[in-house]
């Protein structure tokens, strides 16, 4: 795969990434994750009392996620507030993260994660999940593993990692957001839009796994940075 991409990257090359932990003081945990021009900010609040009370579970705490895009994060202004897309992404984000957190010591409580995309250029849900995992760790929530997420995709029959907006908008492009746990290498998020063969999907997931390993190291470094400064 020597063919160059619109921004000059190789097929298995992610955009430039940056992670920072501890950016929102008021929150119990927070992080920023940037991949290329996509910037996600995540804050964790809790464990705290869960309202409404009928959702409380005496056995364990609950993880709740909210994904939102700032109105000005996209070329044409997005109406502020939730929509069907953000509700779905909030749900898959929660599912991508819930298996690594252990909230059994917090019965009836909730851990809230809020994700705000302040600048979007594709891959926002993956950036949100990567930021959220960092924020959970920063909040000191008991975690069995780390989670990293990246999108892979197929354009004109070729597999690429971390599609940018131009690539995502190519006709018949297949977009596959994936999240992996760091230690156990389990997939906790997998969505797909497009058309792909099993062989291609195998290749794509392998590429996603390798990229998430790189992200995992960057996350670990960001967490260490944060505690070094304290």
């Amino acid at each position, binding site marked *: 795969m020597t063919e160059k991409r619109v921004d000059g990257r190789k097929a298995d090359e992610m955009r430039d990434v940056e992670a920072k932990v501890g950016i*929102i*003081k*008021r*929150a119990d945990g927070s992080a920023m994750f940037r991949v290329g*021009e996509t*910037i996600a*900010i*995540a*804050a964790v*609040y809790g464990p*705290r009392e869960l309202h409404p009370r009928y959702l409380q579970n005496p056995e364990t705490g609950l993880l709740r996620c*909210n994904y*939102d895009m*700032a*109105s*000005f*994060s*996209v*070329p*044409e*202004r997005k109406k*502020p*507030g*939730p929509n069907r897309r953000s509700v779905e992404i909030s749900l898959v984000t929660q599912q991508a993260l819930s298996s690594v957190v252990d909230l059994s010591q917090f019965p009836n409580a909730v851990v*809230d994660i*809020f*994700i*705000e995309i*302040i*600048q*979007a*250029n594709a891959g926002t849900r993956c950036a949100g999940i990567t930021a959220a995992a960092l924020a959970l760790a920063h909040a000191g929530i008991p975690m069995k593993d780390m989670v990293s997420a990246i999108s892979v995709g197929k354009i004109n029959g070729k597999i690429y990692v971390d599609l940018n907006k131009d690539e995502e908008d190519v006709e018949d492009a297949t977009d596959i957001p994936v999240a992996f746990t760091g230690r156990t290498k389990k997939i906790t998020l997998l969505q797909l839009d497009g058309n792909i063969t099993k062989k291609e999907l195998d290749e794509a997931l392998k590429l996603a796994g390798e990229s998430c390993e790189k992200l995992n190291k960057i996350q670990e470094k960001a967490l260490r940075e944060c505690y070094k400064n304290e």
Partner: protein
Amino acid sequence: MNNDYIVSLIKEDKRVDERKLDEYREIKITHDVSKNAEGSARCKIGDTEVIAGVKMAIGAPYPDSPDEGVIIVTAELTPIASPVFELGPPSEWATELARVVDRGIRESKAIDFKKLCIKEKEKVWMIFLDIYPMNDDGNLIDASVLAALAALKSARMPKLEEDNIVYGEFTNEKLKLNKLPVTITLGKISDKIIVDPDSKEESVLNARLSISVCDGNIHAMQKGGSDGITIEEVGAMMDIAIKKEKELRSIIK
């Protein structure tokens, strides 16, 4: 932190973070924090952080001002910024914040809306100014106004093709601001007046007054809090606000 302690300190002209009563926390403004926005900025006042973004669209003018552009200000108090903010439709606090920012800009005539007319009665520029607090450590109003002004001031006009916007492409023209109306928020605790209350001080404020000032003139005011304030106190607050105007304005430049 004990509320009584905050109050007892203020009675002795002292504050928890060792500021003077009329002293702001450190203010920092960063431009262009979001590339898809026509203009954007981040304002930090101490640990309080607000991001403002400007998006432009084309729409029909209001019938009573057929040759004038439109500005629409919204604020989203997303729960990212504070443990007390909740999801859902804009709260009364978000609505107040947006309207206070809006009035300061509108009433000082900071924007020449006539210049934003494309075709009378049919097409005008609509400015969407959206405010997202990221960390609420008190005084969101002043931080939002500064972020808003910085975002507006740096906003680039999008390219037009047959009166339609080509998103992502810009002309060399900027959205001009004729004035920079800053807002100074003061609080009353016991019988003392403080500027720029942080979140701990906000929890013991008896009353709050936000004053929008431009070139020594006052363009908007908003009182908050349940206690009353005397005419003398309002006078003293205005004096402080006018004195602080230059200091804040020099930060936006």
